[in-house]
């Protein structure tokens, strides 16, 4: 990967973040959806759950909410390129397709991570879980889980760019593919949140699994993005 690749990647990511900074549409929608999902889960599960199950439920709720709100971000980040056919202007620029992909993955991940901070606090409060006990581990798991989800989602969102029912299709196509990411991320998070299991070996195992999955998904994304987006 050359210097110009990273330069273009950064430019694309900054462009998407600048547009979001101007409208704040994705962040507000994601934040509201995230809060709503966590609240609904807490109403439904808090009274029924065994206190020992709290950390496991918290991890599940955290990643379920991330899945739903991440889909909102993915759909909208690519949808902005569809409006006015600005995707064509982007594809005609000297930016390599792989850099466009990487830039979109970074921008989507950063938007998701911003909302995940709010999500994590909410989950910690509503499920009485010590979410920040292992802060560095949690940050690594959130980062890798989000990256894997965005890396896959950007490809599917680009493939559905010209599809009429893209929002419905995006979830249906994407969710089965990201199961390994969700599995590893939620297992790692559950082990991390569990105060009865201070052993970090399972966390380490699932984090390495997550890293391997990310490498595979990002490599595939860099490879297939060009044919997917050009529709050729």
């Amino acid at each position, binding site marked *: 990967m050359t210097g110009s690749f990273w330069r273009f990647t950064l430019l694309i990511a900054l462009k998407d973040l*600048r547009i979001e900074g101007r409208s704040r549409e994705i962040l507000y929608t994601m934040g509201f959806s995230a809060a709503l999902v966590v609240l609904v889960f807490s109403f439904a599960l808090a009274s029924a759950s065994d206190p020992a199950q709290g950390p496991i439920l918290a991890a599940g709720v955290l990643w379920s909410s991330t899945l739903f709100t991440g889909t909102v971000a993915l759909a909208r980040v690519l949808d902005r390129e569809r*409006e*006015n*056919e*600005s995707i064509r202007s982007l594809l*005609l620029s*000297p*930016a*390599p397709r792989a850099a466009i992909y990487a830039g979109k993955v970074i921008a989507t991940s950063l938007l998701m991570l911003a909302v995940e901070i709010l999500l994590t606090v909410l989950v910690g409060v509503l499920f009485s879980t010590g979410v920040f006990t292992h802060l560095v581990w949690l940050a690594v798991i959130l980062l890798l889980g989000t990256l894997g989800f965005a890396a896959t989602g950007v490809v599917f969102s680009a493939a559905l760019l010209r599809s009429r029912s893209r929002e419905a299709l995006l979830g249906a196509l994407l969710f089965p593919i990201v199961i390994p990411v969700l599995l590893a991320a939620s297992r790692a998070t559950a082990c991390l949140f569990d105060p009865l299991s201070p052993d970090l070996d399972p966390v380490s195992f699932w984090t390495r699994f997550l890293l391997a999955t990310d490498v595979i998904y990002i490599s595939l994304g860099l490879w297939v993005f060009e044919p997917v987006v050009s529709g*050729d």
Partner: protein
Amino acid sequence: MSARSLRVAKVCKSYGRHRALVDVNVVFTPGRVAAIVGPNGAGKTTLLSILSTLVRATSGEILLGDESFAHNPSARQTIGYVGHEPGVYPDLSARQNLRIFATLYSIADAEARITAMLERVDLADVREEVPARSYSRGMLQRLALARALLHGPEILLFDEPSSALDPVGVRWLGEELRRERDNGRLVILVTHDLDAAAQVANHLVVIRRGRVAIDQVEDAGFATERVRALYEEALRDR
């Protein structure tokens, strides 16, 4: 401006069994506006997509001067494209849009160039905070032209640029096309509007069922009746 011709040689494009373009041979020359006309589904937009490097030809060759052009990422620097959609970000202002493309094209002294382009398309007085979303159709198309010209491309490609423009906008666009032609730029216009083609073109290409049916150059330009006659002749033949 450009002194290099764009040579399309034996270009074919198939989508499965459907042959969208068959053995297309055309030479586009700088200082001319080439109008590509033809009925719906004739292959005009497919040819333009191949010329813009967005779509790969199944076979054949495209050369800009002596350089291979088709699907060559570095060739994109030489292309400016204006479609029927403006290709800009609606949440950003005209200047912010042009700033993004100026950084992508690594334009030196970008702010001065952006100001010059905004003045040229008469958008310099629009307030900075007004997003493109609230622009009229004509303003958006003027911004699209500014975006396409920003990096000083050798080749300008237009795909039905006047659709949805009012008569004033159509006249303005015709003047801009003639201006670029007189500046020596290589201009290719895909349209189904024969009157618009006659107003600006001095090279007429009629495509029918993926093949070039008429390829004619008139340095003095074409009268509307002549364009209509050539078009009907092309559709009648074969």
